[in-house]
């Protein structure tokens, strides 16, 4: 079935998530869609599968314009979407999921559903049995079940959003076999990914999105040169590092390490970091680069004790941190700045002064005046637009972030920041970095993750690149440029930089 979009536009507030997109996905082929985080891939897929409604332009199935009110309408018209995290009911069996998620006309009886499931699973080489409980299935198997469900409901075009994230290599192979088979039977497969090698292996055509628009000439045949695709995904590569006020550190091997990881294995959700050996030098800024969900989160949370490794040893300044709680990490001088300020960072309805009162060491009765003085000092020192009585909730994002930074004690030895400038304008972001670099110069180690390549290159002393749970060695930032970093993030030439591929990672 041919799926095409014409001048499709979707805006969220001032953001044009999809900006005048025109593409045509022919039947019987597998179409890759590439793009970095926030490029608009997911929005396009949600528009095609009826989760969102377009603000402009049209969607055509078999050259006929359609108005998709909801995912059910899209599925009736023949388009189904497989989400990264399959949407199913954990307490049900595979068969029950199939039954409850399919319209009555598709699977009229339990026996019929059981047959359909078994037949489709056999035909596609999937390993899902009708009576398996969902809770016992892997993500890969749940994805297979979702594909079976969509096909049983009559889907002739399948959209897969990052389907190989979190599934085993064997499952990915069998998925590819099944997708090729589906395409050869005349179905359309749209494969959203940021892994260049998978797109090169599987797809017939590829399109690249950036900032909500189609880059280049639109749909291109595969193969395409990798550097060309990377350039399209991440932009020109003409980035010049911002002028620095302070000399870049690093390069001197004599610096003691702030954290030392020895054979660390840790997992979060279905992503695993395995056998990680790493020395993070004290007094430097280490940027964690990679597409969202490539493992940066796991390392950040490991470093401040929020998740514990299942194997290996984590040392801080020589001390073994096995089994230490986040509180112990804090007493060792590690502070964590979460990306979701109002979720994990601050207590929104409490005022600035009340936050400083919470930070007062000991004492039964609140020293109100001391807390207000501390708040006033922070307001002056960190240029926060507020009064001590302002609830944190009422501050702007930049002010919230500066307030959070101001609450971090002066003697902190290490800062773990998750997207320190998320949602901030350029001036605010620069101000935050001024503070962070000042802390670095005072001897504090700063580890941060961000999706912004320029931010990584501008402020890091070292860069760690994450790709699908694999971690590069510590790369001195001075040796990196945007094109090379983009390659690594896309997994190109990752072996050469892989921490484990080298016998001596230094």
């Amino acid at each position, binding site marked *: 079935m041919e799926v095409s979009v014409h001048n499709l536009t979707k805006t969220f507030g001032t953001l044009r998530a999809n900006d005048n997109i025109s593409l045509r996905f022919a039947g019987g082929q597998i179409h890759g869609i590439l793009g970095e985080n926030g490029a608009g891939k997911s929005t396009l897929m949600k528009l095609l599968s009826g989760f969102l409604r377009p603000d402009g332009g049209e969607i055509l199935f078999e050259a006929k314009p359609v108005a998709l009110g909801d995912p059910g309408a899209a599925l009736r018209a023949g388009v189904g979407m497989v989400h990264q995290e399959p949407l199913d009911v954990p307490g049900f069996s595979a068969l029950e999921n199939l039954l409850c998620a399919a319209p009555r006309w598709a699977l009229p009886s339990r026996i019929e559903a059981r047959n359909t499931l078994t037949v489709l699973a056999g035909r596609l080489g999937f390993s899902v049995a009708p009576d398996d409980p969902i809770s016992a299935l892997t993500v890969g198997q749940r994805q297979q079940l979702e594909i079976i469900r969509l096909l049983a409901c009559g889907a002739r075009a399948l959209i897969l959003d990052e389907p190989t994230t979190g599934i085993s290599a064997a499952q990915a192979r069998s998925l590819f076999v099944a997708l090729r088979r589906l395409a050869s039977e005349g179905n359309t497969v749209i494969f959203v990914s940021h892994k260049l090698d998978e797109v090169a292996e599987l797809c017939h055509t590829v399109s690249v999105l950036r900032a909500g628009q189609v880059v280049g000439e639109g749909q291109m045949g595969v193969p395409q040169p990798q550097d060309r695709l990377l350039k399209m995904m991440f932009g020109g590569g003409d980035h010049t590092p911002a002028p620095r006020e302070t000399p870049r550190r690093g390069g001197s091997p004599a610096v003691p390490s702030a954290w030392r990881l020895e054979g660390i294995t840790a997992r979060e959700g279905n992503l695993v970091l395995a056998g990680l050996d790493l020395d993070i030098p004290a007094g430097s800024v280490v940027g964690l680069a990679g597409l969202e969900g490539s493992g940066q989160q796991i390392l950040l949370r490991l470093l401040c004790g929020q998740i514990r490794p299942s194997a290996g040893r984590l040392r801080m300044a020589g001390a073994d941190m096995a089994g230490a709680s*986040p*509180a112990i990490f*804090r007493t060792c001088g590690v502070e*964590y700045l*979460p990306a979701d300020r*109002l*979720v*994990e*960072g*601050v*207590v*929104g*309805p*409490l*005022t600035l002064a*009340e*936050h400083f*009162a*919470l*930070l*007062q060491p000991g*004492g*039964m*009765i*609140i020293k109100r005046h001391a807390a207000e003085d501390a708040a006033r000092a922070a307001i002056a020192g960190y*240029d*926060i*637009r*507020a*009064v001590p*009585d*302002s*609830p944190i*909730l*009422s*501050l*702007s994002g*930049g*002010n919230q972030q500066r307030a959070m930074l101001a*609450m971090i004690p002066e003697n902190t030895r290490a800062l773990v920041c998750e997207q320190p400038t998320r949602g901030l*304008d*350029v*001036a*605010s972001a620069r101000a935050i970095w001024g503070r962070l670099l000042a802390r670095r110069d005072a001897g504090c180690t700063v580890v941060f993750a961000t999706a912004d390549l320029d931010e990584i290159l501008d402020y890091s002393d070292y860069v760690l690149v994450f790709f699908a749970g694999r971690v590069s060695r510590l790369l001195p930032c001075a040796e990196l440029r945007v094109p090379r970093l983009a390659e690594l993030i896309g997994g190109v030439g990752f072996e050469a930089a892989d921490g484990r591929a080298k016998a001596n990672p230094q």
Partner: protein
Amino acid sequence: MTSSDQATPVRPDHRSPRSARRPPLLVGTLALGGALLFTSLVLISSGVPPLAAYKLIFLGAFSTPTRISDMVMLASPLLLCSCGLTLTFAAGLYNLGIEGQMILGAVAAMIPLRLLPGLPPPLLWALALAAGAAGGALWALLVAGLRVGLRVNEIFAGLGLNFLASGVSLYLVLGPWRRIGQASSSGTEPLPSAIWLPTLNNLRVAPAAPVIALVALALIWVAVTRTRWGLELRAVGLNPQAAGRMGIPAARRLAESLAACGALAGIAGAIQVIAVFHQLIPSISSGIGLLALLVVLLVRANPAWVLPIAAAFAVFTVGSVQMSVSLGADSSIAGVLQGALVLFALLARGFSARR
């Protein structure tokens, strides 16, 4: 700085930490108006003249010295329970187990009263109150253990333990502590009048009870508004994740607030025994814990309003007792008014929050 970086400092309403930017006066007026309208409709539909009914509800409690003393003896345990619930509410918990905590407090208070009736009465009362506090706190710590240790929602844990507490007191009334010669579910053998909490003249009011309740209120007010512990409690209640990040032992604060609430409810239960019923009866809590929940739903974690609201609720309840005699209507109309007040207050808050 760019224009997007402008803060709009808002003066927080110190009296009400949870509703920082809502006009409490408007909410109060809307709630009162809505509740009166609704209650009037109920009254008219059952053929009761609303004005006469309201006169009883609002003023009936002050009609005779006996009524006033009844009102005070209802307000005292109500105030104690509301104080306790203020703490759990600040910590973001709905302690529906307060009824059970009150019952267990009453049961625990019975132990020294039965075992050591020969002690000097003041010492015995102190022991009974302390035992009541301990019993209530322990029962509340069961809720805390289930909540923190096993992630059982405190609402379900509390409700379950309420049934268990009722069972325990009924068992004691019918079994080991039954009246000599007969087992009656109406209560245990009454305590010797020498160890009743002394009352004024021949009224039922025991001055010690309201004094204890007011002292507890003062303590809670200081704890919530002035101490670091209270601030930490509020931080945990508003955002446990962020509180944990700032080094506050969130689970411990939750358990402490429940234990403190249980202790206050237990004292209320002990007062029911030594000052009101002078025996253990199966319904020793008389629904006071649930009424306190309504009080706290109205005042939220704001101790300053606990006294007026709890007193008003006691006035309504006692005043409406005369309804059946003088107007032929059921006294439960006080419950209608109280419930409607809470309902309309929640509605009004919801509306003003959305705007």
